[in-house]
C-alpha cells in the first residue's frame, strides 16, 4: 500500500519537475531559437541547436535551481553551443558556416524589393557579435548588463559593439536610399 502511495508521489513529483522545467526553459524557446538563427543564419540548424540545448539543460536541471537569471543563463548557453557548432563545422568542412552565407543574387535582390527584407540581410551580414548584440537589444529588449553576461563582454564593450552595429546599418540604409534616388533620377 505504501509502495503504491510512494510511486504515485514520485509520478506527481516528476510531473511537477517537468512542468517547472517547461515554464523555466521552454518559455524561452522562441527567444533561444531567434538567437540561434541569428548566429547560425539557418532556421533548421537553429532548431536542432535549440533541441540539443534543451535536452542538455534537462539532464542538468538540478543546476538550474541555483541559477539566478535563467533567461540570461540559457541564452549564454545557447550562444556558446552555436559558436561551438560553427567551430566544429569549420574544423570538419574547412568551409565555415559564417562564410556559407551568400549575399542575395541580383534575382533575389529584385525579389527583396522592400527595404525591410534588405535590412534583415544587412543585419545578417554583420559580424556575429554585432548582429547578436543588436538583435538582443532591439528585438529582445534586453538590458546591457544581461547582454554583457551572455556575450562574456564588459558592458562598455557591449555598448561600443551596439553603436557600431547600428551605425553600420544606418550607413547602409542611407546608401540604399541614395541608390533608389539615383535610379529615380535616371
Amino acid at each position, binding site marked *: 500500500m505504501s509502495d503504491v502511495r510512494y510511486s504515485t508521489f514520485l509520478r506527481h513529483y*516528476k510531473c511537477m519537475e517537468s512542468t517547472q522545467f517547461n515554464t523555466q526553459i521552454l518559455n524561452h*524557446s522562441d527567444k533561444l531559437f531567434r538567437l540561434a538563427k541569428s548566429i547560425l543564419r539557418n532556421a533548421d540548424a537553429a*532548431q536542432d541547436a535549440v533541441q540539443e540545448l*534543451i535536452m542538455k539543460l534537462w539532464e542538468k536541471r538540478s543546476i538550474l535551481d541555483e541559477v539566478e537569471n535563467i533567461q540570461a543563463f540559457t541564452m549564454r548557453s545557447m550562444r556558446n553551443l552555436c559558436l561551438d557548432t560553427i567551430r566544429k563545422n569549420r574544423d570538419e568542412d574547412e568551409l565555415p558556416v559564417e562564410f556559407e552565407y551568400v549575399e542575395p543574387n541580383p534575382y533575389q535582390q529584385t525579389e527583396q524589393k522592400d527595404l525591410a527584407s534588405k535590412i534583415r540581410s544587412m543585419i545578417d551580414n554583420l559580424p556575429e557579435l554585432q548582429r547578436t548584440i543588436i538583435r538582443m537589444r532591439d528585438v529582445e529588449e534586453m*538590458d546591457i548588463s544581461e547582454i554583457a553576461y551572455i556575450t562574456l563582454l564588459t558592458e562598455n564593450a557591449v555598448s561600443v559593439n551596439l553603436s557600431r552595429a547600428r551605425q553600420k546599418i544606418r550607413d547602409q540604409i542611407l546608401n540604399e536610399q541614395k541608390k533608389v534616388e539615383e535610379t529615380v533620377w535616371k
Partner: protein
Amino acid sequence: MEMMNELLEKYFRGETSLIEEKELKQYFSTANVAPEHEIYRSLFEVFELELKETAISPVIIDLSKKSKIRRIWVPAFALTGIAAILILLLWVQIPASTENYAVIRGNRIDNTEYVQQYTVKKLNKVNRILARSMEPMKSFNNVRKNIEPLQNLLDRRKINDEQNKLQFK
C-alpha cells in the same frame, strides 16, 4: 520633431535607454513620422517583425513518454537480473556437490584423513564381528578334515569297481 531627431542620433550612438528605445518604436509605428525619418521606419518594423518569429516546431520535452519507457524497462531489467542471479547460483552449486566430503551421524566432515581413519576403524570392527560370527564354522572344518580319509577310501573303491567291470567286459 526636434526631440525625435535627437533621440535618433542618441540611438545610433548606442546611448539610448530601453524606455527611450520603446518611445522610438512607438513613434515609428504611428502614421505621423517626419518625412526625413521615414527611411528608418523599416528598421524598427524589422525589429517588431523578428520578435514574432517562433521556433519552427514547438520544442517540447515529453516526459510522460519517457517515464512510460522507463516503466517498461525497469521490470525488464529486474527480471533479467533475477534470472542472471538464479543461473549464477545454479552454476556455483553444481561444482559444490562434486566436492569430497562425508556425513558422519548427520555431520558433514571435510577432513579426509579423519574420514579414512574412521572408515578403517569401522571396517576393522566389521571384520571382528564377522570373525566372531564365523567361529562356529570352524567345527564344520574339523568334521570335513576328519571325513576326508573316508571320502578317499570311498572314491578308491568306486574306481576299483569300475576297473573290475571293465575287466569282465
